[in-house]
């Protein structure tokens, strides 16, 4: 039974890889790295692929759910994956958003405080948290698109102050909640973990909104050459503003997931340094820090790769604390691969006109 599962998984993986390669999708590279890592685990990590089917519940309804290491990877990668979706668009217009971690904390704090201290209905709590994320995004968008402050500087403000705002909301307490609906967001399963489904949903929705309309195209144009785009009539400012607002929204969703997952709002630690992981996922996914072409699915694959790397090390009993080192090497490798100068060393010699 297990062997069959593994074979099916690998067949799917190979088809997936072949497909992305044929269509020259950038997601091929992070997926290939992910596949190599999983292949390594297939041979060298006991029990890695062991999946169990258990009885679980989805908002009170009994449903089957899967347990196992791969499922853990999907579960833990979702937060960074959701952040990476918003971050991809921000980086595509040539920006960066350092405040996503702090915005996560604000959203989590809003949800928990409203629910526990004011007894607001779960739906209203979630709406309020998302609204907080949108507001944070508008603030960033205002600073970058209207005031013209360099993105790294502009979002630094909220990065520093945001966590304070979150603590203000929770009054410095760690607010524990057990509303079944609110705790389900981060813990429920529908065969696979709900956060993962949420990430997929966000990915598909974002993909449809950017690729189904001309938004994605115009974002890429602005990121590649802002002057030329605005001379062609593209409203670059509005696009930049919208993209930051959307990134704030994604941060809020990621914040809800994490808060719900640990069943408490800890304003000090929710989303701490996750902005760096999100940026890393985007860069691994092939979107350049200078802006232009962006790859949503590839960024999510990058997030999965980072998590798989960490989980593999847990599974291999490598002290979890060493995990940052391979992360560092991955970033450096990706940077070097994208560097014009390094490329020229390899390709330039052959002389492409």
């Amino acid at each position: 039974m297990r062997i069959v599962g593994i074979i099916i998984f690998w067949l799917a993986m190979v088809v997936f890889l072949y497909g992305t390669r044929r269509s020259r999708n950038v997601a091929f590279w992070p997926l290939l790295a992910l596949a190599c890592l999983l292949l390594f685990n297939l041979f060298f990590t006991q029990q890695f692929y062991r999946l169990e089917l258990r009885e679980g519940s989805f908002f009170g309804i009994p449903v089957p759910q899967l347990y196992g290491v791969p499922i853990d990877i999907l579960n833990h990668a979702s937060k960074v994956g959701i952040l990476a979706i918003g971050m991809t668009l921000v980086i595509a217009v040539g920006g960066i958003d350092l405040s996503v971690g702090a915005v996560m904390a604000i959203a989590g704090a809003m949800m928990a405080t409203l629910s526990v201290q004011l007894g607001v209905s779960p739906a209203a709590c979630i709406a309020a948290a998302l609204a907080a994320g949108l507001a944070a995004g508008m603030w960033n968008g205002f600073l970058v698109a209207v005031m013209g402050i360099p993105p790294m500087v502009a979002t630094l403000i909220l990065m520093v102050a945001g966590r304070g705002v979150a603590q203000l909301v929770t009054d410095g307490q760690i607010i524990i909640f057990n509303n079944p609906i609110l705790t389900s967001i981060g813990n429920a399963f529908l065969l696979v973990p709900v956060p993962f489904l949420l990430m997929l949903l966000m990915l598909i929705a974002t993909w449809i909104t950017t690729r189904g309309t001309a938004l994605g195209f115009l974002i890429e144009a602005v990121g590649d050459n802002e002057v030329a785009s605005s001379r062609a009539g593209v409203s670059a400012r509005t696009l930049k503003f919208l993209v930051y607002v959307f990134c704030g929204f994604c941060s809020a969703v990621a914040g809800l997931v994490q808060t719900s997952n640990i069943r408490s709002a800890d304003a000090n630690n929710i989303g701490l340094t996750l902005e760096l992981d999100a940026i890393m996922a985007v860069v691994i996914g092939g979107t350049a820090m200078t802006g232009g072409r962006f790859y949503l699915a590839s960024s999510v694959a990058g997030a999965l790769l980072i998590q798989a790397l960490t989980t593999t090390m847990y599974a291999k009993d490598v002290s979890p604390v060493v995990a940052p080192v391979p992360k560092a090497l991955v970033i450096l490798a990706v940077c070097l691969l994208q560097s014009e100068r390094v490329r020229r060393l390899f390709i330039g010699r052959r002389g492409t006109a």
Partner: protein
Amino acid sequence: MNSRYLPLIITALVLGLLLAAGGYFFNNFLSLRVFINLFGDNAFVGVTAVGMTFVIISGGIDLSVASVIAFTTIFIAQTVQDGMHPLLSMTFALMLGLLFGAIQGWFISSFNLPPFLVTLAGMFFARGTGFIINDISLAIKHSFYSETIRGLAIPVAKVGRAVVRIPFTAQCLILFIIGGTLLAAFTRFGRNVYAIGSNEISARLMGVPVDRVKIMVYALSGFCATAAGCVVTFYMQSGNSSSFVGLEMDAIAAAVIGGTLLTGGVGWVAGTLMGVLILGTIQSLITFQGSLNNWWAKIFIGSLLFLFISVQQLLKHRLKGR
């Protein structure tokens, strides 16, 4: 009045106001002891921020400093436990920090990589290697720490029975501030750093060795962060590889509040000192007040950042306008 000193003047005003507010609300706030402690307790942030100031003036950023501090503390703690003399251990640590920074600078300048990503990698790398050395908090037990360092404190005044001393950590901070100021204002290296940050293309055309200066800037930042790590061991007397997560942002905030332009070309080490003191004063105000909460500090610091960035933006537009 020269408008380019405007950010520096605002910084000084804010610091003055904060201290005055402290003095008004709390009895002992404006005492010599509190003031000296302000220096001593924030010495490691200050020393780190000196290096960070140079990096930012050159138009870059260094995210690795907090991890480097943590690495240094655990490195010293471990080697001292293994029988090395603290001085020797610190010398090694400083050399490592210098080398580490230089390697980051080399990647940035010779492959033209974004400093943000390279130092992000450096941050993970230093944090991980620190954990490899030891992943628990390790006390440093050595007579050098318990006697020599303490003995270096300079008594300055006698208040009642107690003697007020300037701790060695505060002395380190003052030393780095003076050194940094001299380096920035009175050496060719310092001028070159400003030139690169202000306009890299012009600097190259004017004959500034841009790549070499960049490597030196990051090496300097690595050195300062390591030195800050040494300073930390002086009063913590322990090493911990998981400490100081996020400190790089404090250092950056201190530099920005001190009038350093995040886009490069403008900044003062003295301003950074004031920035560090502002952050420290906010902290002590909250400690003194007791019921006031820590998060107000963050919100206040964020607002200060906004204030300074807006002022700089206005100045920039005014310059463009002519």
